[in-house]
């Protein structure tokens, strides 16, 4: 992964690429690419580094969250040095992310993981489509558009692929509320149990 990153930086010093480390035992590190550079980086990966196959495109929803940070400082309190903890909250704005898994069949290597982020989760949800680079991204980018609402600029045929065209929501987003067409559940639990109780109490 670091070799790929160095090759990209050597060829395109201005490209916004950074390594995202995965600290878990699987160690699947990924490359985060700025939206403006992703098409150039993708073409470089395909033509120079031999990443000729895009096996998987998925969307990720990152809703806005409050991040709690605890910092420890050493301060002098009453002449004695003590550790003082201060907690601060920081608002992290939400965004959507597209993840591409690339393999090289000719070099028998992979998977290389590319991440591309949108600006936010509302109006600025466009990223460049990589279908012109890897044809196999076509249907999977349509799926990410369908279920997450990520717009792919330059996609040849960006339509919903699983839901019907008239559908207005994006069901895989964290804040999606499914239609309440629930009538009866033989073994209710959690939220469904709460609904059953509300309905049975409301019924005469």
């Amino acid at each position: 992964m670091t070799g790929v990153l160095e090759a990209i930086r050597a060829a395109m010093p201005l490209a916004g690429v950074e390594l995202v480390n995965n600290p878990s035992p699987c160690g699947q590190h990924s490359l985060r690419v700025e939206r403006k550079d992703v098409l150039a980086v993708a073409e470089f990966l395909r033509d120079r580094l031999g990443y000729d196959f895009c096996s998987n495109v998925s969307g990720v929803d990152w809703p806005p969250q409050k991040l709690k940070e605890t910092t420890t400082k050493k301060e002098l309190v009453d002449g004695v040095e003590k550790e003082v903890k201060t907690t601060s909250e920081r608002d992290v704005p939400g965004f959507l992310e597209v993840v591409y898994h690339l393999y090289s069949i000719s070099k028998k290597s992979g998977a290389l993981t590319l991440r591309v982020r949108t600006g936010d989760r509302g109006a600025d949800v466009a990223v460049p489509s990589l279908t012109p680079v890897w044809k196999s991204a076509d249907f999977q980018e349509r799926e990410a558009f369908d279920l997450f609402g990520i717009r792919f600029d330059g996609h040849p045929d960006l339509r919903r692929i699983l839901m019907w065209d008239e559908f207005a929501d994006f069901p895989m987003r964290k804040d999606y509320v499914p239609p309440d067409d629930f009538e009866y559940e033989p073994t209710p639990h959690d939220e469904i149990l709460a609904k059953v109780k509300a309905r049975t109490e409301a019924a005469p």
Partner: protein
Amino acid sequence: MLNEELRSDLQKRGIFVASFEDLYNWGRKNSLWPLQFGLACCAIEMIATAAARFDMARFGAEVFRPSPRQADLMIIAGTVTKKMAPLVVRLYNQMPEPKYVIAMGACAISGGPFKEGYNVLKGIDRYLPVDVAIPGCPPRPEALLEGLIKLQEKIAGQRLFGPNRARHADTRDAAEYPVPAYGAHDLEPALNPAVFKPAPARRAAE
């Protein structure tokens, strides 16, 4: 009606007496032509039922018709997604009377494991009058045959005249059910109240 004793007495002398209804229903129930379509994995079991090992031909239902105009029986074999539901209802509307519906498997009955999802219809009985529901995931071919036999029994008992006449003999029934439209959040309407009569959500005292 003919007395049973007299009927069996006549039968012993080689004279068979039957009502028109019995003859008519006997013919219908032994030549059910299913509509040839499958929606998910239950369709694989339906194909196995029709093939040589289980042999649905033994019950006269082997003639799978590729056109709804020639079919008597609709086997809803598999998950009905909300995107597919209007097409299933339209196919049902295109079938000539008398017509019957078997809901095969957990998904067709209630949505099955996908019940709490956003894209699967929670049972085809929201839009169509289901005659026989076969539980299972998927039901074994024997279960489908059992369901078929249950449907045959139901057909044999149907009356053609009188106040208790069958649905298809009732001219007041339009036999056409409204096809739901694709809405912005769900199918519109989400169910047909004339058809859908759910069990009330009642639980034992907790």
